[in-house]
């Protein structure tokens, strides 16, 4: 892995005589290659390794007895710092609205049910709203999941997402349900009409949370979709899904770096219990491989 490569690089370097600022570049290249292979955004990698290099020189890694260990510690610390702390859901209003958004197939519907289940276990009274009127059987999918976890699902007239949300808002008022989790259709960040639909929904429900689902295996383009969803909606956090796969998940560093928004949850399987809080040091180890 990365550790071995760096330890070899520094051994070779020290074998050549004094480690200098010029040849620490080799260690930097190793980190760069590793992060790119992990799907971290090209631009983020460039800035990240620049910072690592500055710190390494500043902390006099070159004078250390174990420069490879010092160097990797700096890389890891920087990564953990950028990945941020885990942050809980901020549910302020009654009822609070949690809106699920994201590209097609990223796990919104499944995660909506997972979040409802999670909140129910915490003693909250969640209700689900099926506002995906586009995908065949999307509403059925959420209904099946809702039945499984004993959480009711509002489905409205199944034809107009805005109308469904309006009806849902009326229904939950004074209903005793304190969290409303809204599933929306998957959409491209460059689909103007669909992005406007989300903006309109946001205006109506004034959500406490707008969660962007991101697939852990996403590559370089995630920088574009994350940035656009965030700029247009001001997302409040991410749910990173399919972390039970073997993707290194560099996209997580990208979305954190680009938006500064926290990762609130991770999906680690298809079952409703396959849902975890975000642990930055675990993710750092995974990204570094």
């Amino acid at each position, binding site marked *: 892995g990365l550790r071995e490569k760096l330890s070899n690089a520094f051994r070779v370097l020290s074998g050549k005589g004094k480690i200098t600022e010029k040849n620490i570049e080799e260690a930097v290249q190793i980190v760069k*290659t590793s992060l790119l292979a992990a799907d971290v955004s090209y631009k983020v990698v460039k800035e990240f390794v620049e910072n690592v290099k500055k710190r390494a020189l500043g902390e006099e890694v070159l004078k250390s007895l174990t420069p490879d260990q010092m160097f990797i510690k700096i890389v890891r610390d920087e990564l953990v710092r950028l990945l941020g702390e885990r942050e809980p859901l901020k549910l302020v209003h009654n009822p609070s609205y949690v809106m699920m958004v994201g590209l097609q197939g990223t796990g919104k519907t499944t995660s909506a049910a997972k979040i409802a289940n999670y909140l129910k276990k915490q003693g909250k009274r969640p209700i689900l709203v099926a506002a995906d009127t586009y995908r065949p059987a999307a509403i059925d999918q959420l209904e099946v999941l809702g039945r499984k976890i004993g959480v009711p699902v509002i489905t409205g007239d199944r034809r107009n997402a805005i109308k469904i949300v309006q009806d849902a808002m009326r229904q939950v008022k004074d209903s005793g349900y304190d969290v409303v989790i809204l599933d929306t259709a998957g959409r491209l960040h460059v689909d103007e009409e669909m992005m406007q639909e989300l903006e309109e929904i946001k205006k109506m429900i004034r959500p406490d949370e707008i969660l962007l689902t991101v697939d852990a295996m996403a590559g370089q*383009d995630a920088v574009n979709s994350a940035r656009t969803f965030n700029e247009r909606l001001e997302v409040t956090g991410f749910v990173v899904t399919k972390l039970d796969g073997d993707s290194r998940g560099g996209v997580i560093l990208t979305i954190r770096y680009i938006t500064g928004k926290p990762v609130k949850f991770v999906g680690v399987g298809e079952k409703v219990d396959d849902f975890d809080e975000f642990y930055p040091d675990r993710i750092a180890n995974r990204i570094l491989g």
Partner: protein
Amino acid sequence: ILKSRRLDEDTKAEIEELLISADVGVEATEYIIKKLEEKKSEDAFGTLKEVLIEILSKPNGLNIPVEKPFVISMVGVNGSGKTTTCGKLAAMFREEGKQVVIGACDTFRAAAIDQLKVWAERAGATFISHMEGADAAAVAFDAVNHAISKSKDVVILDTAGRLHNKRHLMEELAKINRVIKKVLPNAPHEVLLVIDAVTGQNGLQQAKTFREIVGVTGIVLTKLDGTAKGGIAIAIAKELGIPIKFVGVGEGLEDLKPFNPHDFVEALLA
């Protein structure tokens, strides 16, 4: 912006960023830049286009057998677009006047059968399904047998999404193949791995593992109507030689096109 120029250090850096940002990956990018260095061309970007097209130009027709039915199995990780692509493929064959059977072998995920049923209706295909929770291989067996007895032309089998690192799920897929072979020894004639164009380097591992366990004959690259370039297709072509057969360019029944290396590379370099 991409005017004629030699492969100097600046151009090399620019090409590296372009390819990496398109998900071509570090290894394939290094290989491509090495190729460009060997060719010493006066038009680096023109030559780049040629090199990329060459990597992607593989025979990518469908292996349609002489005897009916032609059996296609759709496989891939969760959410990549398999079910939707089943509908699109069925519609494509219907356009050619073919009779199509769709088999609902995703017996696991919530409302998967309902979702596929809608697509089968839209495409005008016969729909074969069992109860949710039934044995996926049994549905496949049933669908192929139905096609044989009713003399249908094509069978398209939708399978449940699964991550390639889940051994037991991959074994289930291998079992579906074995069961089909009992009825039709050369089937499935095509095993199409459906990959989301947004996928990063993990796509290479997906292709490796799926091919190893279920024998992938081609790739469908979906969601190319987004901003993702789908450069993972280049890494897969270079590393594994698996051809891209179709691209998905939207959520409608018509949004499937045969893969064209020229168009793909043009869009990637745009």
